[in-house]
């Protein structure tokens, strides 16, 4: 979509709150709608899909008007060029995987070649599943088929409603890399509803934070999530940083790989023999801060940065946003006690100790 920004305005009473949002969303990239359950994020998504109807709603996708109640316009769901992925995949149990994939594609009058079917199935690793029945698939496979099924209609907009929430942690890690690959390869906007900060920080370009039906913050995930993560249970543990770094050397004897980053060397406990670049992830709670360079510590990854912002929550934790040497940003979660005792302030130069660095499952 060209300059196709999305304009969405919905006001709708639901389960005790009133959803009241007025959003301009970018015409590409992943925008996350983040918030606790009952915040209205799924309802907002359903309004975009046309599955719920806000009485005075407005929805424009680029030059297309899907809803403009002031002028009596409401395009029903099946005439909207959108794809939707539900939390529970919602594959049709009476059709095979191939039947499910064909269902939307034929109705959207898209040929397999136009939809890039083979490449898409390859990318999502579902090419071998064509003849299988949905109830024989794993949760992760089901979700990948559902994603392919939605994309094969060549939608102008992809809506994802907590696509990983029904999966266990291991399956989630299975699917996450595919979502990241989609984000990088699709040129349509993706609206991604989630209450998991980890998914949002890893996948989204922008996060819109909803609480009780209203937008309370929006911006880059690392800017808004540290303070917004308190809205969801366990959310403060879910803020995750992602950095790109260059592979320098693989130490076969110790089974580790050294990566170069402008802020310092990153050590990862794995052999990365096939990659020249890697994307690594580190939880905010695994990132510690020190005012002077620690000499005798087991932590091998020590980066340099400057404190840009401090969000002290009401709980024991504070989120410290850092600008690393080289410009990347990183969030550290430390106790408020440590914050005060070390007298950390905005602008201070600090050493950033990363206890555990995980490789993003996806190569670059």
């Amino acid at each position: 979509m060209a300059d196709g920004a999305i304009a969405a305005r919905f006001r709708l009473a639901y389960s005790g709150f009133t959803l009241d949002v007025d959003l301009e969303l970018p015409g590409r990239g992943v925008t996350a709608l983040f918030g606790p359950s009952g915040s209205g994020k799924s309802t907002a998504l359903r309004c975009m899909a046309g599955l719920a109807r806000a009485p005075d709603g407005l929805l424009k996708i680029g030059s297309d008007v899907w809803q403009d109640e002031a002028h009596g316009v409401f395009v029903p769901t099946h005439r909207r060029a959108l794809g939707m992925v539900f939390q529970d995949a919602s594959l049709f149990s009476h059709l095979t995987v191939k039947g499910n994939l064909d269902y939307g594609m034929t109705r959207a009058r898209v040929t397999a070649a136009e939809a890039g079917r083979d490449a898409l199935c390859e990318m999502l690793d579902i090419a071998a599943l064509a003849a299988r029945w949905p109830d024989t698939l794993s949760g992760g496979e089901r979700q990948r088929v559902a994603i392919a099924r939605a994309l094969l209609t060549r939608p102008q907009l992809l809506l994802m409603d907590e696509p990983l929430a029904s999966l266990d942690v291991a399956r989630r890690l299975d699917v996450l890399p595919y979502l990241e690959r989609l984000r990088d390869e699709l040129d349509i906007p993706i609206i991604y509803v989630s209450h998991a900060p980890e998914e949002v920080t890893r996948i989204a370009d922008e996060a819109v934070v909803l609480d009780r039906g209203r937008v309370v913050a929006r911006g880059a995930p690392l800017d808004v999530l540290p303070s917004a993560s308190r809205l969801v249970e366990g959310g403060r543990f879910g803020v995750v940083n992602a950095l790109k770094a260059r592979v320098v050397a693989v130490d076969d004897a110790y089974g580790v790989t050294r990566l170069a980053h402008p802020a310092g060397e990153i050590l990862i406990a794995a052999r990365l023999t096939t990659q020249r670049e890697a994307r690594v992830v580190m939880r905010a709670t695994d990132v510690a801060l020190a005012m002077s360079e620690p000499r005798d510590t087991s932590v091998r990854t020590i980066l340099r940065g400057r404190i840009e912002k401090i969000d002290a929550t009401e709980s024991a934790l504070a989120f410290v946003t850092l600008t690393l040497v080289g410009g990347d940003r990183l969030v550290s979660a430390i106790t408020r006690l440590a914050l005060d005792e070390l007298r950390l302030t905005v602008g201070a130069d600090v050493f950033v100790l990363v206890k555990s660095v995980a490789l993003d499952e996806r190569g670059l």
Partner: protein
Amino acid sequence: MPTSEDFAAIWLTLKLATIVTFLLLLIGGPLAWWLARTHSWLKGPLGAVVALPLVLPPTVLGFYLLLTMGPHGPLGRLTAFLGVAPLPFTFAGLVVASLFYSLPFVVQPIQNAFEAMGDRPLEAAATLRASPLDAFFTVALPLARPGLVTAAILGFAHTVGEFGVVLMIGGAIPDKTRVVSVLIYDQVESMNYERAHWLAGGMLLFSFCVLLALYGRRRNGRYG
């Protein structure tokens, strides 16, 4: 041994049950769909009306149907106006009566199947460009298939087993309204126990086989 009289009654019974089952699936499908998905206040009253034959004595149902179809009833006036024969004591009258009598056995399994599937499959179909009618035929009906099969079996079997309503509406006219259950009654009345045995035993076997098929399918079936 069964006589030609018996075979005529069996043929008539099967013909009645087949026609009624077919019509009930046509009527009951959309009715079940509406009952499963509506939020209208009519859902309760209409659902109760559909279920009435489950609890009413067949004589009550038959009595009112007889009045409705009689010369002073609305259906009777309609048939008179159209210039066709009055419905009571005809095969057509039996079909109409059986439609009411077996309605809940067809509507309820289908309605349950539609309700159990929920909105999600239809929403998914809509996001894949299927119109509501398209989604009904390509998603809702196939997913409700176990309910449809149950409905057809129960509707058929229940119509075969009908007695009281038939007697009230149709009497026992050979080749027109004398179905198996009525013939058995006639034989017993005339003390022809041996002839009654053939038919009664046959009904027993038939009903057992139908129910066995139904419950066996439920246990082993792919869709339960």
